[in-house]
């Protein structure tokens, strides 16, 4: 990406994609404003964040253009919503993967005509983006892959399937050997589906390369995460969250390179004892439902209240990058076994039992020297809201302060949440 492309007018491309231009302009300007207010007001940001600032300024521009150009040469785009859909397989069959989760309240009135009001914000958001024709990533997706995780998503994919080319992967709900074998078989079907889409074969060679490539992306994120254990923290939680959010749709090698550069800078900061917040700032670990772009609400509240977020135990956080796929597989079979084992090791609340997640949260709270944990659940997300009670219990037993928050994407409760967050920061 080069800086001078910022002046390009993308309207013709958006129009070609069938984007509703006036509505889309309104969305972009709202997101731009939110971004400016949440990110550009921060002091002492790492210089490496300028890459992410640029990516965000081009969020529906240059990156979409890259996808567009890739498709013009016969490339295929696969849109996904969940970590359990392996990017490695998509890339090994020659396609590109983009995350489609959405984090803004948009088009709800349209959504509520076809879905219950009490559906979680994440689902409402991507359905709203689809129904109001404002998401170029949905438009650029040749195939959208859903998964049978929570009930809300399962039903949403049926509706989305009426409008887009949707394929649904079945996921087990437990992690016994037979469940892992089941998921492993689903991966074979998924491979066939992507190969059919691209007309290219996944080979041991392409898969090995893609495993390495995606692992490298995760390794860069692990490096960034590791620096957040330092006090003072070298990067704000908001910036670190943004880095993870962008991982789901940016060009893989370029992103990895830029994030490694950011990690270099952060490691230097740590060595120099330089930070973005005073060392006395209260350190918070967040756990819960994923925070899709442009959802920065809770981080913004915490950091504007004087705290600092030092980690995210969520799909836009450690659940995404904490574990790697073993790279020693040689045959496709071995590598698929490795993929199945790695992905079935993610601790999502859609699974039962889910003790692993409790252990992860307690471990992370200690590793990142958190003063307290905030459990964040989207309203109407049955699995995470219910599991919040187990999270609370596990943390209480570990002697770590915890506060539970149920919210959505709206700005309505920001005042009340700020008071609760401030009081929590005073308390811990």
């Amino acid at each position: 990406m080069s800086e001078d492309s910022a002046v390009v007018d993308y309207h013709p491309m958006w129009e070609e994609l069938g984007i509703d231009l006036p509505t889309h302009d309104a969305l972009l300007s709202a997101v731009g404003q939110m971004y400016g207010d949440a990110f550009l007001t921060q002091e002492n940001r790492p210089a490496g964040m300028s890459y992410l600032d640029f990516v965000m300024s081009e969020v529906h521009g240059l990156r979409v253009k890259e996808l567009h150009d890739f498709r013009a040469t016969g490339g295929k785009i696969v849109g996904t919503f969940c970590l359990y859909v392996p990017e490695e397989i998509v890339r090994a069959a020659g396609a590109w993967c983009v995350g489609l989760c959405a984090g803004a309240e948009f088009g709800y009135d349209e959504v509520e005509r076809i879905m219950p009001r009490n559906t979680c914000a994440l689902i409402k958001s991507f359905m709203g983006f689809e129904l109001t024709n404002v998401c170029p990533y949905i438009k650029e997706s040749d195939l959208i892959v859903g998964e049978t995780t929570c009930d809300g998503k399962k039903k949403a994919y049926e509706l989305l399937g009426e409008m887009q080319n949707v394929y649904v992967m079945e996921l087990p709900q437990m992690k016994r050997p037979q469940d892992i074998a089941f998921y492993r078989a689903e991966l074979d079907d998924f491979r066939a589906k992507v190969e059919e889409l691209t007309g290219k074969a996944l080979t041991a060679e392409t898969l090995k390369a893609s495993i390495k490539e995606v692992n490298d992306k995760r390794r860069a994120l692990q490096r960034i995460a590791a620096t957040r254990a330092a006090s003072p923290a070298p990067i704000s939680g908001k910036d670190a969250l943004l880095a993870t959010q962008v991982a789901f749709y940016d060009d893989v090698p370029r992103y990895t390179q830029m994030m490694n550069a950011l990690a270099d800078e952060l490691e230097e900061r740590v060595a120099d004892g330089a930070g973005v917040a005073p060392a006395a700032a209260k350190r918070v670990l967040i756990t819960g439902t994923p925070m899709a772009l442009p959802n920065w609400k809770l981080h913004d509240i915490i950091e504007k209240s004087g705290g600092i977020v030092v980690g995210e135990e969520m799909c836009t956080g450690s659940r995404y990058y904490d574990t790697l796929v073993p790279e020693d597989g040689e045959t496709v079979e071995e590598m698929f076994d490795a993929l199945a084992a790695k992905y079935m090791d993610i601790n999502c609340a859609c699974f039962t039992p889910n003790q692993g997640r409790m252990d992860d949260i307690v471990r992370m709270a200690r590793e990142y020297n958190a003063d307290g944990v905030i459990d964040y659940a989207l309203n109407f997300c049955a699995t995470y809201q219910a599991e919040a009670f187990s999270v609370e219990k596990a943390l209480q037993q570990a002697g770590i302060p915890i506060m539970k928050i149920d919210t959505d994407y709206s700005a309505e409760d920001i005042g009340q949440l700020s008071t609760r967050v401030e009081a929590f920061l005073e308390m811990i």
Partner: protein
Amino acid sequence: MRVLGLDIGSRSVDAVWLEEGRIVDSAVADSGFDPAAAARVFVERGNHDVLIATGYGRHTARESFACDVVTEIKAYAAGASVLFPGAASVLDIGGQDTKVITLGATGKVTDFEMNDKCAAGTGKFLEVMARALGFTLEEMAAEAIAASRTVAITSMCTVFAESEVTGLVHRGESRSAIARGLHESIAKRTVSSLKRVGAVGPLVFAGGVAKNPAMVALIRREFPGDVLVPGESETDSQIVGAFGAALCGLPVK
């Protein structure tokens, strides 16, 4: 050193002046449309060395007066534990929200819960119900205490409860029994949120609604522990927040 603590709430702005840790003056004003302006009157008296604000309008105060701020949670905890050493928990029912706080040995906040999403069970709720019954707040409380009967009120949402009350009045239900039912349902709901955070006695009941004798009596009846009300000692229950804020403004010794 004189500290001015301000509690800028949605209904009132409360001020407490502390000298050597003791209250030397206090005042309460209506928030009106511009709570910052109401607060400014107190600030402009100019007889303080340190200013600190709490309450819903604390951030506005920080912008207007460049002062420190604390949350209502911390302020109430500080105020209540100084007024009543040994207090284990605090209940604050204010104009538009309810807070429940549990305290550690030294008066430190150990947990809290806020109902801040709707007016259910708050001062605002009682005002609306009093109007629906054609009583003043004082009359409604007196009627509730004197009532020989009660009627169950099922709605806690201010809007639904108002129509429920109007319906009951139209059906000829006695207004004092309705008043009783309203107070009882708030008390039950409040005590269940106290239990949820594991609050034990002695409980300090503060905030504007703690001036309502019917609420005090019913919370005492429902809560399994001692209930202490500031107004019954010397400090007005309404200024606990401002007092607590002022205490937080004292230099750490």
